[in-house]
């Protein structure tokens, strides 16, 4: 669900966040209009709004874990975790986490990839929010949900700054609620 339809209709912060996101055409390949959040991170006010909106939503939901997907989930997750008193758990590409991990494979357009989490990072029963900068097909987030559910954690919601059209109208992913701040920006008059 989009924040604007869920209590934040007309909230000027959402426009500020959207305006701060840069679109880079044809990255990483032709036809993809890449939603670049690095410009959001350069805009201190808009970045703060982003974190504040998630914090306001999750602070009273008894959340004990924020799980962030490498690498852009790392840019948003820890600030939210710190503000609500939750742990931060990184979900990483293969072979980055030292020690014992569990892995979950997921489909890419061509081939598969893998997401890993530390064994023991999340005890069973803990309430978790999964965070990433953007959701497109939902493949990565679905893998994250599966990883967390395999260890008995309860995924309460997935949170993303941007939601691509594929998820518009979808309120759930893998049965889990999806909370998104903004739609992708478009470039006028572009190919």
């Amino acid at each position: 669900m989009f924040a604007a339809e869920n209590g934040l209709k007309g909230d000027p912060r959402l426009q500020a966040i959207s305006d701060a996101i840069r679109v880079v055409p044809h990255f990483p390949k032709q036809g993809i209009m890449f939603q670049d959040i690095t410009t959001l991170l350069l805009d201190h006010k808009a970045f703060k709004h982003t974190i504040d909106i998630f914090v306001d939503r999750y602070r009273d939901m008894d959340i004990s874990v924020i799980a962030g997907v490498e690498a852009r989930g790392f840019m948003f997750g820890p600030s939210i975790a710190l503000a609500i008193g939750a742990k931060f758990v990184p979900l990483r590409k293969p072979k980055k986490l030292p020690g014992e991990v569990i892995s979950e494979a997921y489909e890419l357009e061509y081939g598969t990839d893998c997401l890993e989490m530390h064994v023991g990072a999340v005890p069973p029963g803990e309430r978790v929010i999964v965070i990433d900068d953007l959701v497109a097909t939902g493949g990565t987030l679905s893998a994250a949900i599966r990883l967390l559910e395999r260890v008995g954690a309860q995924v309460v919601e997935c949170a993303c700054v941007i939601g691509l059209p594929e998820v518009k109208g979808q309120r759930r992913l893998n049965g889990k609620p999806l909370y998104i701040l903004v739609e992708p920006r478009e470039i006028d008059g572009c190919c």
Partner: protein
Amino acid sequence: MLSLTTLCSPNETAASSSYQPPVFRLRSYNQTLPPTLCSASDSVANQPKMSSPDEQDPRISKISSAIRVIPNFPKPGIMFQDITTLLLDTKAFRDTIDLFVERYRGKDISVVAGIEARGFIFGPPIALAIGAKFVPMRKPNKLPGEVISEEYSLEYGTDKIEMHVGAVQAGERSLIIDDLIATGGTLCAAIRLLERVGVHVVECACVIELPELKGRERLGDKPLFVLVSST
């Protein structure tokens, strides 16, 4: 403003009354002259008062003990300093960020540059708290749009770090954050990248230093601030 760089190994605590404090290096935040260039009278004036050793900040030992060491990762012989356990300790993680924020708030720092990927975990909370931009410094081909690159040496071969063109302006004052400094190769590349576009790198800040790898020396006259030094 004086600040404390502690040389505390992960297993030391300050609990017992017979505790011998580790050697402290008090590093003046505004120090610009290396000691050898000070005149005799300057050196007295510049010496921090050490009539009794300052207590290490009480938050440091909990931060240190929250860091997990994984032997032989990513390869045999390396004792990997794993900060993910620090991120699971909400108070210790909070204290880590607070220690950096207390040091850098009000110092006219407009940029916090974080090195992929663990610098992305510590940098943004610091940037938000001190009112600075966060600039990710990334491995090749991750940043979309126009970038500048800096190559640096690895034990075998080279690697590259990239930053967006236009992310920072000449004259801005910046920190560089990473979880750990080892040889200092990556941090040096990050310094060069920022300096190439006219940014003043005020200090490099890491949670952990591995002093035996002499990263501090490799940074030369660039100040380094760490919370925990691990031998």
